[in-house]
């Protein structure tokens, strides 16, 4: 057992898209201030599971979940939970960098502005803080009022991470955050993940085995909607318990 407390926990979680059973009886507990990686072949349910953690699937017609997901011991699908409050706590970074077609500054402070914060000083400070956290500050400090779309792909993705950090979440979900980036930008993001785990709980979906091995503390292997194996990353990559995990990790299928 780990000494750190559990930040996120799924208990008997089932998810459905209409009649399709996408997640089957998932039980998993993720540690606080650690990186958990989800791996598995396409369509295995890892992204679906990631998106249930901040309820991003709510807007999909016909999607429903059964079972519990606990954030700090509280069921996030409970009746008293407001989705916007949940998402302030659980931020998300997407596969393709998706900055808003606005200025860099507007991108970073968007989350704060929609909470009703208008104080220019508060916004400016928050923008600088989160851009420093993502090592983007020096690169963009002179062009805060330029369009975010003029940045390179890697910079855009770091901007998206800064944007997520600006509203001070405790959990950050990353859905294949480097799959659209070149190796150098990828390395920067991975470095960043390593630093961020001092303060945040990070859950990352990745198709890249090496990446999972490099950045994560725990790894979960999904297959056909089931959680096949969940263990310390080192353990999983050196001595997986299940044959399927072994085959996937060594590249024999997937």
């Amino acid at each position, binding site marked *: 057992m780990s000494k750190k407390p559990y930040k996120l926990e799924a208990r008997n979680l089932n998810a459905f898209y209409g009649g399709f059973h996408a997640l089957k009886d998932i039980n998993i507990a993720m540690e606080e201030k650690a990186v958990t990686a989800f791996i598995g072949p396409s369509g295995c349910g890892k992204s679906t599971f990631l998106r249930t953690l901040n309820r991003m699937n709510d807007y999909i017609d016909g999607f429903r979940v059964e079972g519990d997901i606990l954030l700090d011991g509280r069921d996030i699908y409970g009746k008293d939970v407001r989705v916007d*409050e949940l998402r302030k706590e659980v931020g998300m970074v997407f596969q393709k960098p998706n900055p*808003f*077609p606005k200025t860099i500054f507007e991108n970073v402070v968007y989350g704060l502005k*929609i909470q009703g914060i208008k104080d220019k000083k508060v916004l400016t400070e928050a923008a600088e803080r989160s851009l420093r956290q993502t090592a983007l500050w020096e690169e963009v400090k002179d062009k805060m009022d330029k369009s975010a779309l003029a940045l390179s792909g890697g910079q855009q993705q770091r901007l998206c991470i800064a944007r*997520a950090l600006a509203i001070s979440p405790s959990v950050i979900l990353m859905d294949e955050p480097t799959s659209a980036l070149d190796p150098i930008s990828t390395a920067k993001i991975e470095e960043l993940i390593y630093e961020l785990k001092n303060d945040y709980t990070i859950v990352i979906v990745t198709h890249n085995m090496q990446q999972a091995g490099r950045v994560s503390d725990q790894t979960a292997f999904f297959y056909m909607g089931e959680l096949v194996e969940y263990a310390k990353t080192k353990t999983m990559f050196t001595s997986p318990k299940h044959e399927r995990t072994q085959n996937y990790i060594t590249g024999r299928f997937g």
Partner: protein
Amino acid sequence: MTNSDKNRLKDKAFQVFGIFCTFIGLVVLAIFLIDILIEGISRIDWDFITSLPSRRASRAGILTAWAGTLWILGLTSVIAFPLGIAAGVYLEEYSKKTKLANFLEINIANLAGVPSIIYGLLGMEIFGRILGLGGSLLSGALTLSLLILPIIIVTTREAIKAVPRSIRDASYALGASKWQTTWNQVLPASFGGILTGIILSLSRAVGEAAPLIVIGALAYVPFVPTSPTDEFTVLPIQIFNWTSRPQADFLVNAAAAIIILLLITFILNGIAVYLRSKWQNKVKW
């Protein structure tokens, strides 16, 4: 001859055919424009634009007609834009994809193809008689609003649909509500497209005579309307009226009025093109 030679020949043939078709359209339009210009341009002067209608062709002007047209444009905008945009946003962002929604969707698209005179009859009955607005500006603007609503709804939806899913995701993931996402991200990003649709629908409304004649807009209005409940005429009705007179001088007046009407339409279309290119440059994915 090899196959690839044949294909190249076909390619060439289609190209020539395409150029020919394009030219037919342009030539007809050019002949029409030149004819109208030759006939009407000399009649346009300050007096023509600022004079009231008259039974004598040489003294008749289009003041009441273009004033009526501007009134109708303004009122129609105020009525149709909020309704059309709101309906488009609702259908695209909020409504669940049920059978009813599907049914509504198909019918809205169909409504855009209903002949305008049918809208005139509807407007006459509902706004003119039941609401007692008669042949007033308000009655006319409401009728034209019905006419262009389907166009605005359809173009609004298309513009909203073009905003990538990823932008909405980003906004939701930061804790934004549906409304905040729509207002802060989706509408600004689709504004260029929506505006283009709006202006093109207006330039359609500006050329309509039939529905307004049905609701009782007059050909002879000896005063400039000052409130939405006043009776009115518009340029197309004035033109229609003049072309049906036997005297040749009135035909010249009609040609001159057509030039003014075309000018208004071209300006509206020009604004639409300008806005579209401006917003396209600003928003790139």
